[in-house]
C-alpha cells in the first residue's frame, strides 16, 4: 500500500510492533508462565478487547483531527441501557432477546456518536470541550439509571450470554476474534475507501480538504459515529463478563484508548491513522499490567509503572520520528 507505508518511514511504522515483541520477550524472561496460551491469549488478549476495539474507533476520530473523551462514560451508559433492556425482558428470555439487546447497544453507541459529531460540527465546539460535556452527561445518566449503584442481569441470562466473552472458536477466544474482525473492517475503511482518505485529509489540513470539495461535517460526524459503534461492540463483549455494570465501568477508558492510539503511532494532531498499530498499542498496555502483576509489583504502584513505561515508549517513538 504505497499510501500508508512509506519506505523512508518503515521503522516508524514498525515501532509499535517492535515494542510489543520486545515487551513479550521481556515478559517471558520475567515469568515462564507469561508466554502460555492461557495467560497471553485467554487472559491478556481477551481482557484488552474493550480498550482495543474502542481505540480502533478513536483512531478514526484522531486521524481526522478530533478527540473523544466521552467513550468511557458512553460505555457505561450503553451497558446500563442494555442491562435495563435485558432486565425488562427477563421472563423466559433467550438468545433472541440477547441479540436484540446487542442491536440496542450498537444503536445507543451510534446515537451517542452522532450527538458528539453534531455538537462538534453544527455547534462548532472544540472536540475536547464537546466530548468533555457528553462525558459528564453520560456518566450522570448511567448513575441515574443505576440509581447510584450497580445494574445486573439475572444469573440465568448471564449463563446464556457468557460464551460471547468466555467462548472461543478454533481455540481463538471470541473477544480476540472481535478485535481482529473490527480491525480488518477498520483497516479497509481507512486505507481503501474515499471516506478513509477524506478522514486523513481532514486531519491533515481542514482547509485543504474543504477547498478540495470534501464535506468536513459529514466526515467528522461519521468518525464520531464509528467511535460510538465501536463502543457498542465493546459493551457487547463487556456485559457478559460480569453480567453487571457499576460506577467503575468504563472509568478512564477514554485515557487508555487515547494512549493505545498514540502508542500505536497515530499522532494526536491527526492526518494519519494506524489501525493495527492501535491494536498493538492496546495489547502493549495490557501486557505491561500483566507483567507487573506476574512479577508481584505492589498493585497500588502498577499505574505509576505503566505511566512511566508509556512515557519512555513515546520518547523512543519521538526519537524515531525526528530522524
Amino acid at each position, binding site marked *: 500500500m*504505497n499510501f500508508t507505508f512509506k519506505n523512508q518511514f518503515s521503522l516508524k511504522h514498525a515501532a509499535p510492533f517492535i515494542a510489543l515483541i520486545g515487551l513479550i520477550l521481556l515478559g517471558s524472561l520475567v515469568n515462564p508462565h507469561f508466554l502460555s496460551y492461557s495467560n497471553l491469549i485467554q487472559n491478556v488478549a481477551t481482557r484488552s478487547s474493550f480498550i482495543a476495539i474502542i481505540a480502533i474507533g478513536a483512531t478514526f476520530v484522531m486521524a481526522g483531527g478530533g478527540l473523544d473523551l466521552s467513550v468511557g462514560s458512553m460505555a457505561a451508559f450503553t451497558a446500563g441501557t442494555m442491562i435495563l433492556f435485558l432486565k425488562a425482558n427477563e421472563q423466559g428470555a433467550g438468545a433472541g432477546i440477547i441479540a436484540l439487546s446487542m442491536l440496542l447497544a450498537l444503536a445507543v453507541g451510534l446515537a451517542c456518536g452522532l450527538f458528539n459529531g453534531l455538537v462538534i460540527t453544527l455547534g462548532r465546539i472544540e472536540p475536547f470541550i464537546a466530548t468533555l460535556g457528553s462525558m459528564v452527561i453520560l456518566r450522570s445518566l448511567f448513575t441515574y439509571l443505576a440509581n447510584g449503584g450497580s445494574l445486573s442481569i439475572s444469573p440465568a441470562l448471564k449463563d446464556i450470554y457468557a460464551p460471547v466473552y468466555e467462548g472461543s472458536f478454533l481455540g481463538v477466544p471470541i473477544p480476540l476474534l472481535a478485535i481482529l474482525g473490527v480491525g480488518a473492517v477498520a483497516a479497509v475503511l481507512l486505507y481503501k475507501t*474515499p471516506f478513509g482518505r477524506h478522514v486523513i*485529509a481532514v486531519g491533515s489540513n481542514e482547509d485543504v480538504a474543504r477547498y478540495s470539495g470534501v464535506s468536513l461535517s459529514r466526515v467528522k460526524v461519521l468518525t464520531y459515529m464509528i467511535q460510538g459503534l465501536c463502543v457498542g461492540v465493546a459493551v457487547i463483549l463487556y456485559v457478559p463478563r460480569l453480567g453487571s455494570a457499576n460506577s467503575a465501568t468504563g472509568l478512564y477508558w477514554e485515557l487508555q484508548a487515547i494512549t493505545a492510539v498514540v502508542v500505536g503511532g497515530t499522532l494526536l494532531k491527526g492526518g494519519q491513522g494506524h489501525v493495527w498499530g492501535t491494536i498493538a498499542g492496546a495489547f502493549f498496555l495490557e501486557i505491561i499490567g500483566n507483567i507487573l502483576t506476574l512479577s508481584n509489583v505492589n498493585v497500588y504502584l502498577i499505574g505509576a509503572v505503566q505511566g512511566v513505561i508509556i512515557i519512555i515508549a513515546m520518547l523512543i517513538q519521538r526519537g524515531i520520528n525526528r530522524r
Partner: protein
Amino acid sequence: MSPDQSTPIKENQGLVAFQLSKAFGENSVLQDVSLIFQRGKVHAVIGENGAGKSTLMKILGGYQLPSSGTLALDGKLLHFTGPKEAEALGIVLVHQEILLAPHLTVAENIFLGRELRIGPFVDDEAMNAKASALLSNLGSNLDPRARVENLTIANRQIAQIARALSGHHDFIIFDEPTAALTPVESEAVFTVIQNLKNQNCGIIYISHKLDEVKRLADTVSVLRDGKLVAQQPAKKLKAVDMAHLMVGRELGALYPPKVIRTNSEVALQVENLIVPPSLSSANFVLHKGEILGFAGLIGAGRTELFEGLLGLRPATGRVSLGNKFNSVFSSVAAAAKAGLAYVTEDRKGKGLLLNLELTPNLTLSTLQQFTNAGFIQHRLESAALDIAFSRYDIRARSRDMDAGRLSGGNQQKLLLAKTLQADPSIIIIDEPTRGVDIGAKKQIYELIAKLAQSGKSIIVISSEMPELIGLCHRIVVMHRGQLVGTLVGSDINERKIVTLATGTEKQAA
C-alpha cells in the same frame, strides 16, 4: 589555505564569501561561489528555484555551515555556529515567511523574546517608543501599538523587517520580501531598503521579480545549478537578460501568443454576486475559450469574489453556466459537479496536504475516479501520477516524497494537476505563479493558453500585472470590493490597470 587564496579576503572590506561550497550527501547545491558584498550597495542574487540562493543566504546568516570555503567580514575570518553569532556581527536575515504573533502588537512582536523590563515587569512604554523610532528610521509611520492581525500584509512585512533590524545591523539579507505584495504595496519595502542603503548598510536582495531587481540593485549576481554564472552592474542588464542568465538558454517569449477568440458563447455569467463584507455586487461574463484576468490590489476582493461563488464563504447572487440562472454554489463539490474548479492562491495552506505523498494529493478531489466497487485502486492512482508527471513536467526526487518537499514550482504544477484531474470546463486560477521560478512560470503560462485553446474557459487572478497583460483576452479591475472596469485590446496596459486598481479613475460603465 595558500597565501594567494587568502588575499581577496584580506584586501576587501565588506562581507566576503570565498569559494563557498555546500553539499548534502552526494547532492551538491553550491559550488565554489565567491562574492563580495559592500556597504551602501544593494547586491541582488537571482536564480531559479534550486539554484542555491537560499543555501547561500543560510550560510551567510549563520544558519548552515559551508562544506568548504570561507566567510570574512572586513578581512576577519568568520566561523559561525549559529544565526545568533551572525546577528551579533550585524549580519541579519529577513525571512520570506511572515513570522509574527498575530495577537500581539507591532512593538510586542519587535521585542518578542528580548522584552525591555523594569525589574520583573515589561516596560511597554519604552518598547513602544523604541519601536516607533525604529519604524520611522525605516521610513514607516506604522503605529507600534497596532495589533499585527489588523495590519495589511505589506505592513506586516514592514513590522517583520523592523523586528529583524531591532538589533545591530550592518549587512541585511532580504529573502523575497515582496513575494506576497502587490506592486503598489511593495513601494513601502523599497523605501525601507533605500533608507537602509543610505545609512550605509549592505543589502543582499533575493527576488524572483526581475523588474524590482533592475530598479533596486547596484550589482546583480546570477546563480545557476549552484554556480555563480554571472556578475554585472544592474545598469547594464535588462530584465530579459537576467532571465536568460538564470535559465541558461534563450527563454523565448515568456508568454505564448494570444489566440484570437472566435467563439462568443457564454461559459459563465455572474449577476449581483455579493460577498459580505468584502464584495458589493459583482456582474461579469466569461466566454468559452477565454482567458479573463482579475486585477486589483490585495484586499480588493478578488479572492473573496470567487470563494463566495464556489461556496467557500457566505455569498448571495445568481450564476448561469450558459443556460439558466441558479443561486451561487453551495460547496466546492457542487461547483465541481457543474464543471467549475478553483485553484487557491495559498497552495501551502489550502491547496496541498504537505505532510502527505504526491498521490493522495493528486487524487483528493476526484477519488471516485479511482475506485472500483467503492474501494480505492492504488494501481489507478499510481498510473494517474505517472501521467501527471509527464503531462505537467512535475519533477520529484521520488514518488513517495511528501508534497511539502517539492519546490514551489513543482508544488504549483501538482496543484494544477490535481485541479485538472476533474476535467473542469471553467478553471479559476488565483495567483498562478506566486513564488514560482521563471522556467516553471513559462510552463504554467503555456498550460493556461493551451487549456483555453482547447475550449476551456479560464479566469486568472493575479497581482503581477505583466502576467495578466501577457495572458488575458480581457481584464476586469477591482477596487475596494467593486468591479471598476473591464479592459480589452489596446486598453490592456499597466497604466490603465493601476489607475483603475488604485481608484484614481473609474471607468465609465
